[in-house]
């Protein structure tokens, strides 16, 4: 197993609320992140994602457990640990709106102990990489929301940190900018070998960029695996037939005899959904439809998306299901 860039061991955090019961935000979480991977942390609102991310950033003190960033404890060896981590936090500007693109990059490089003059080429590289070349002398306040987010990620990159935490990096961005940022994140991990740890409510982003995900619910990890493995776990071979118009009562009754099949009327057409437990059921449906010369508009294989996987895992967890999977 490769050396970890991030190790979180038995992390717990309870918030004491005045005149109310304490809230257990994070309950004994352990996780690891490896160089060059994009790891997603998912969960519903209040699941404990932000608390976990902020504890990793050293902004919230855990009640118990420890966090090692490149082998350095982020509270006991704070300065050394902070050399290896940077973050773009949701709900924060993360950059100075009064400074230009270049001035922001220079300032934050200095904050991480890097002389901006010594890394001028690097600054130029990231200005180009994030497509900020034409705006490099504009103050951040004059940039679009998407450009500001790109600048915030560029600032996180310029610090040279091996671990980059991005809290909802595409929140509130238009489709094009969201796509651009996703592509940039892939490049960051692939070309620069950075580890990206991101949280997002957008399952398309997660499915698109993350290799591995951790799903948190009620402060506990309920699933931790590669995206592809989790998709397989919930994969159902389903086919959707769309037949023109309504079917005869006889045909409906015959189809209803086939296991794992459902019928529905949609926009004057009939939709037949078949979970393919047995291949012969597929042929049976085709045969029955053919027997009445039903005109078929389409036959599509149903693809499960990560949102359904996420909801499935969450549902199982809330129904008392056990931990889904672990590396």
């Amino acid at each position, binding site marked *: 197993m490769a050396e970890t860039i991030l190790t979180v061991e038995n992390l717990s*955090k309870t*918030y*004491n609320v005045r005149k109310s019961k304490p809230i257990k*935000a994070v309950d004994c979480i352990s996780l690891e992140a490896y160089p060059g991977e994009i790891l997603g942390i998912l969960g519903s609102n209040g699941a404990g994602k932000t*608390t976990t991310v*902020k504890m990793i*950033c*050293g*902004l*919230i*003190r855990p009640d118990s457990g420890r966090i090692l960033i490149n082998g350095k404890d982020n509270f006991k060896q*704070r*300065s050394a640990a*902070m*050399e290896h*981590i*940077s*973050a773009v*936090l949701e*709900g*924060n*500007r*993360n*950059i*100075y*709106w*009064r*400074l230009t693109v270049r*001035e922001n990059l*220079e*300032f*934050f490089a*200095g*904050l*991480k*102990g*890097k*002389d*901006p003059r010594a890394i001028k080429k690097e600054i130029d590289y990231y200005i180009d990489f994030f497509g900020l070349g034409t705006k490099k002398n504009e*103050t951040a306040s004059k940039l679009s929301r998407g450009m500001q987010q790109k600048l915030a990620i560029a*600032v996180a990159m310029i610090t040279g940190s091996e671990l980059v935490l991005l809290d909802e990096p595409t929140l509130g961005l238009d489709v094009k900018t969201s796509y651009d940022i996703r592509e940039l994140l892939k490049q960051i991990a692939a070309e620069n070998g950075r580890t990206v740890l991101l949280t997002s409510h957008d399952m398309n982003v997660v499915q698109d960029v993350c290799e591995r995900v951790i799903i948190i619910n009620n402060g506990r990890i309920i699933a931790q695996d590669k995206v592809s493995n989790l998709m397989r776990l919930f994969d159902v071979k389903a086919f959707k037939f769309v037949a023109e118009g309504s079917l005869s009562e006889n045909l409906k009754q015959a189809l209803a005899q086939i296991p794992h099949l459902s019928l529905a009327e949609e926009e004057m057409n009939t939709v037949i959904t078949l979970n393919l437990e047995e291949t012969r059921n597929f042929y049976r449906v085709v045969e029955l439809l053919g027997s009445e010369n039903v005109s078929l508009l389409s036959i599509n294989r149903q693809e499960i998306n990560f949102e359904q996987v996420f909801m499935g895992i969450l549902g199982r967890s809330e129904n008392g299901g056990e931990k889904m999977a672990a590396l």
Partner: protein
Amino acid sequence: MAKKWLLFKQLAKKSWIEFRRYFFNSMGGIITLYVVFLVIFMGYKGIAGAAGPDLGTSIEGILVGYVLWFLALSAYQDVAYSIQNEARQGTLEQLYMSVHNFGWVIGLQQIVNAFYSLLVASVLTFFLMLTTGKWLTIDMLSLLPLLILELICFAGVGFALGGLMLIFKRIDSYMQIVQFVLIFFVAAPAKSFMKLMPGTWGAHLIQKVINGGEGLLEFAWQDLLLAVVISLAYLLLGVVIYRICERKAMQAGTLGHY
């Protein structure tokens, strides 16, 4: 140490860029200070002869007291408002994630601010002297160390308030109260326990340098030692209060929330 110097340079550069980019606003602050002094000066001329506190018995006293009050205000407000501004604009967390302890970041920022305040104070003093026609003989070598001690003392007050700001977020009304309390301390007679109040003893020595024409080396060493001890004690106390508040905010997960 090289990294700290680098940080200092970056903080100074950022302050300079902001001062220059928002020059109109920056100048507005200085002009306001000047106009407020004019009002006080005119008022004083109107009631000349009336008895006043120690520093207020002469135009020189008012002038020195006013500049000192400005420095006190700058020193304590800069710390607290720096923290508040960073939290407001959503950059406080980034400063906490620097490779330097946040105390260094805010401490070095205060040194930058102190330079700025001293520069403004010098310009202000010049124009005030021009307005009042009272030209003070200023022994800078004696004055500067005392001013720095005063700034250190008030920075301590600022750290304590900055800490409270991390927990309570909005303490502006208390900042106003502290402002008036500091006016009182700067102007108060440095007698008995009052000399231990923040700024009082330092202001007393500064008054002696400016109005009395005394040099630093003419002071009794006990007097100078007392000024150093008071300043460092308030700084230490302020930092301790800040650290306690910071720890509480980090435990409650409210650092940077605004």
